[in-house]
């Protein structure tokens, strides 16, 4: 196959060629960046929470006076445990994807605050109910659960669990158990390290959700009240959560159930990533529409060129070109245009990505996306040009003898 005659033919249709190549270049840039954004969203959605999501739910109530907190906790936990199917009920501050919990900067040297962490609090038995996996040290024993000060957030010294991610961040390469850190006036000593415990709103830290969480063992009362962790078998959880709301109306008719934050952890997770899922769906929709429009553009233009060159095709056929030659001519022509577009598109994709990284929180485009996008566009181009090219190959040689 000779490329030179194709190139000189394209030179005659310079403008149309450039336009279709630009269209492909733009499609390539959008395709790469949209695909990278979809991947980012999906990987954010796959965050490991570190808790047994399918077995857990949270029930949150508000509208009680602070002095009723201890009494309410006792009644709620006792009442919730009587619901058939409930394996355990605990007083907790929040769960991953649940209502906003306590967040604070922490320090090792009282000078710098290198990380912001999430503090979870829970009563005895909570780590087991959550399903936390211990990787070093030990789980809190009964002694580690301390009474909450009446008018404050935490006791002066708490013995806590930290996540592996936080331990690695604070003490890289060292044994974390026994180490200490501070948040304002509060002191913490690490007694154990758990594999994972996601921050309750991982996305607040951007898509890099570091999983820097601390679990503070605490006895119910004071500020640790109003949110209750319910554990049940996965298949019974939905029924249990409905029964729990009915039960609350009996146990404590004067409190207000916070319906927005009283759900299974699975549901809260789905809600939490709703916007990401919608965005990913939208991006997929755009990619499909984009490829469709590009393909239609190629079909339209190729059809026109075929119609325009009927006579030339006839002459070529008359002087000995086979059908396959004609077919291959149009296929090669398309390949050249798409290649031209893809080369431009790769440059454009990188430029667009750099601009997006500057303005939005978009991650760097993995370079291996580029060859894949090129292949996709080549295939798309070949498929789109196939029908017009086949039509061209069926032009009979006799056309050459007719005028116009």
């Amino acid at each position, binding site marked *: 196959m000779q490329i030179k005659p194709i190139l000189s033919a394209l030179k005659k249709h310079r*403008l*149309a060629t450039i*336009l*279709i190549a*630009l*269209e492909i270049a*733009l*499609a390539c*840039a*959008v395709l790469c960046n*949209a695909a990278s*954004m979809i991947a980012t969203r999906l990987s954010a959605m796959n965050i490991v929470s570190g808790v047994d999501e399918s077995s857990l739910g949270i029930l949150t109530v*508000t*509208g009680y*006076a*602070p002095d009723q907190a201890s009494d309410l906790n006792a009644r709620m936990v006792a009442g919730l445990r009587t619901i058939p199917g409930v394996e355990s009920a605990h007083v907790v501050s929040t769960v991953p994807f649940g209502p906003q919990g306590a967040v604070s900067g922490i320090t090792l040297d009282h000078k710098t*605050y290198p990380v912001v962490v999430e503090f979870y609090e829970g009563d005895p038995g909570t780590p087991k109910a959550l399903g936390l996996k211990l990787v070093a040290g030990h789980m809190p024993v009964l002694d580690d659960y301390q009474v909450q000060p009446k*008018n*404050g*957030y935490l006791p002066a010294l708490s013995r806590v669990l930290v996540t592996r991610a936080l331990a690695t961040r604070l003490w890289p390469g060292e044994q974390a158990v026994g180490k200490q850190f501070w948040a*304002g*006036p509060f002191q913490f000593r690490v007694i154990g390290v758990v594999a994972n415990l996601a921050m309750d*709103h991982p*996305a*607040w830290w951007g898509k890099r959700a570091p999983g820097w969480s601390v679990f503070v063992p605490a006895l119910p009362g004071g*500020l640790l009240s109003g949110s209750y962790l319910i554990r049940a078998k996965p298949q019974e959880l939905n029924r249990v959560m409905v029964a729990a709301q009915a039960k609350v*109306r009996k146990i404590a*008719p*004067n409190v*207000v159930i*916070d319906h927005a934050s009283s759900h299974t952890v699975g549901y809260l997770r789905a809600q*939490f990533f*709703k*916007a*990401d899922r*919608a*965005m990913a769906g*939208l*991006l997929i929709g*755009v990619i499909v*529409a*984009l490829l469709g*429009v*590009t393909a*239609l*553009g190629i*079909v*339209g*233009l190729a*059809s*026109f*060129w075929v*119609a*325009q060159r009927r006579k030339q095709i006839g002459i070529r056929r008359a002087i000995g070109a086979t059908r396959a030659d004609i077919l291959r001519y149009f296929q090669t022509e398309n390949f050249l245009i798409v290649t031209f577009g893809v080369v431009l598109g790769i440059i454009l994709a990188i430029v667009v990505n750099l601009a*997006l990284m500057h*303005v*939005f*929180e*978009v991650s760097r485009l993995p370079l291996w996306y580029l060859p894949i996008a090129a292949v996709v566009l080549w295939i798309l181009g070949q498929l789109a040009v196939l029908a017009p090219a086949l039509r061209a190959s069926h032009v009979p040689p006799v056309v050459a003898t007719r005028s*116009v």
Partner: protein
Amino acid sequence: MFGYYFHLALRSLRRNKVLTALMVLAIAVGIGAAMTTLTVMHILSGDPLPGKSAQIFYPQVDPMPASAYSKSHPLPQMDYRSAVDLWSAHRANRQALFVDSPVKVQAPKSNLPPLMLTLASTTADFFPMFNVPFEYGSGWTAADDTSHARVVVISNDLNNRLFAGKDSVGKTLRVNKSSVRIVGVLKPWHPSPRFYSVFGAVSGFGQGMPAYAKAEDVFVPFFTGIDINDGAFQQYTCWGRVKHPGHLVNAPCLWVALWVELDSPAKVASYRAFLTHYAQQQKALGRFANTDTRMLDLMGWLDHIHVVPSDVKLQTWLAFAFLAICLFNTVGLLLAKFLRRAGEIGVRRALGASRRAVFAQCLVEAGLIGLIGGIGGLLLTYVGLWLVRRQGAAYAGLVHLDVSMFIVTFALAIAVSLIAGALPALRASRIAPALQLKTL
């Protein structure tokens, strides 16, 4: 002549139906995508107080100690003392303190379960300053502010829920543990964004998005709110220990906002000077470490706190990139189409048509495609907006196509197709007649 060209364009479009359909579809899809996202942008970044927003300002001072942490600007809220000092100076035409807190509300003699609502504690100027419409009664007076009067203004929605929409002025309501008398019921009022109570912490991840939540249901005088809902206030941030969580008066915390209305540039300048003077005076007293102040107008403030979610901005860029692809597509197809008629055009030129006439004829054809594409785009925009509403974001309920966006849709469609048509039409008009006639 236009009528004739229009007729010719129709004939030409009918001659090759598939190609026409392709071009119309490309424009329609591009317009549909661009207009859907543009409508969402238009609604989210709209002016919540048209005609008045330029007179509304958000003053800020910086009460944080120097050691708190490094930053270049005052944080979004103020401590109690600074806010009340500035408010009680009454240097602006109108001024309103503002703070939100969660509260339990119950209608006495009703068997409805208690409700957990958001309590807005503000001062009398709030209602006239933000053009808040009243269904029944009115706001409270400045005297009610200073006397900690137990009065309340409720939303239309709450009035419907508790009093079945009847005039409830004069009735009482249990707000936390206090009885308050209703003095006003609002008309349905949905400022979007809820501009007066977004103070940063607007996350760009589509999560929560308090900026587009509905307005508060209960409004009480500022100092009344501080009294009756003590213990429920939440700080933006604190730089020292809070003795009693939820009780923030005199605590080292940022939690109160102040809005002012200034009706002339001179007033604005003098208020800025007043702010600077206040900050310097407080520094001299040893209460402030920084004398930075800032006062943005309403739209400037909304822009500063990035009230439009970044996802929405990203979608808009994406949609316009898509529209550009559709545009290239249409240009390519029109070019092919016009040049294929080179013979026909050559004859017209030879018979005396000017280049301009040929150009006009081609543009009319392109414009017609744009018009049909615009109608298709409009339908697709409705579909797109329906999809956005189904997506369930916090702003979903607000999304609709208003008259201005309806017109923009058609303007955009025709502009796009004229731009798409200009280049091919130019090429067509430059066809040399002699060359074409020779090949006939």
